[in-house]
């Protein structure tokens, strides 16, 4: 799917750029993007190290297992086929907790590590397992209780009540999460039958 999307994106960009006479802007942006990608990666390199390290410490302290046991019911429904006591359970629990708490910087590294563990369960096959797809979809649905960045931007934009959007955010996030889970579940069944 990413193969297809990538070609479509690049084709659409070049075609639109030719039509709108923005070819120079495209090539400038392209060059700048490589630098941006490296900057982002370097920033992420730091937080990946920090959170992978802390994760290992939490694992050794038995904190991760405790968290995984707490979330066991959710796991059995969403991420099927993960053996009991596999590190993937703990990694998913840590990553989802970081998401909920709004620890944005921690959530991505922890999520990437959880995905790696899920891939090990899947025998490191080139085809994603149902559990891997579900984990990606749940993360892309962005479950966040306090949208800190947006609240700050609202305040700077002169809002008299920045937090007034919170109920709407919770409802929209819940709808997004539920429809993502339902969509993933429906599609995994259909694919299996084929």
């Amino acid at each position, binding site marked *: *799917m*990413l193969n297809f999307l990538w070609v479509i*994106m*690049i084709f659409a*960009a*070049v075609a*639109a*750029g030719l039509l*709108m006479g*923005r070819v120079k802007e*495209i090539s400038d*942006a392209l060059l700048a993007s490589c630098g941006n*990608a490296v900057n982002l990666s370097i920033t*992420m390199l730091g937080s990946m*190290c920090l*959170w992978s*390290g*802390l994760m290992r*410490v939490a694992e050794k302290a038995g904190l991760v297992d405790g968290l995984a046991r707490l979330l066991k019911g959710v796991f059995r429904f969403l991420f099927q086929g993960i053996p009991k006591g596999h590190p993937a359970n703990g990694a998913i629990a840590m990553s989802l907790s970081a998401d909920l*708490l709004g620890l944005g910087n921690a959530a991505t*590294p922890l999520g*990437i590590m959880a*995905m*790696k563990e899920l*891939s090990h369960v899947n025998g*490191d096959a*080139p*085809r*994603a397992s149902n559990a*891997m*797809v579900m984990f*990606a*979809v749940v*993360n*892309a*649905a962005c479950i*966040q209780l306090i*949208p800190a960045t*947006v609240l700050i*931007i*609202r305040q700077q*934009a002169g*809002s008299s009540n*920045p937090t*007034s*959007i919170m109920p*709407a*955010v919770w*409802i*929209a*996030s819940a*709808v*997004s*999460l539920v*429809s*993502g889970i339902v*969509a*993933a579940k429906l*599609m995994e069944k259909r*694919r299996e039958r084929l």
Partner: protein
Amino acid sequence: MDFLANLAIPAVILFIVLSAYLKGVPVFDTFIEGAKEGAKTAFEILPVMVGILAAVSMLNASGLFDVLTSLIKGPLALIGIPAEIIPILLIRPFSGSASLGLFTEQIKLYGADSYLGRTLSTIISSSETVLYTLAVYFGGTPVKDTRHAVAAALISSYAGMLTAIYICRIL
């Protein structure tokens, strides 16, 4: 609330390190061991980032989103979606920095407490940069076939964004 938000990360770190130390874990050695693995993964993801950001930056610069906006403005108005919201609906799944930049501009223009301002805030808060998230998450694994991940994530994202548009009329 600012204080609590700022406290979250230091408190989590202190809790992890302290409880490990009390259980006799060699905390710093263990931390380094884990951090090395994190560094390796981050390097594996760098090429994925370059590929995704390159394509996204080309799309942003091409003006395609302006063309699309004027094309679908009419039909979307029929189901109650204001034209001002359309650019963010199109850009959000592709680019985090572009949609956040656009949001910051628009909220000043329309006013943070207006219907448009609240709707835009809700959309940004309840959705994620789907394409980037998927690429980065799968980027650390040998997966080539992501199956229905992109489709399901996009469905989830647009369901959330549409809900934001309608719910902000009531709330």
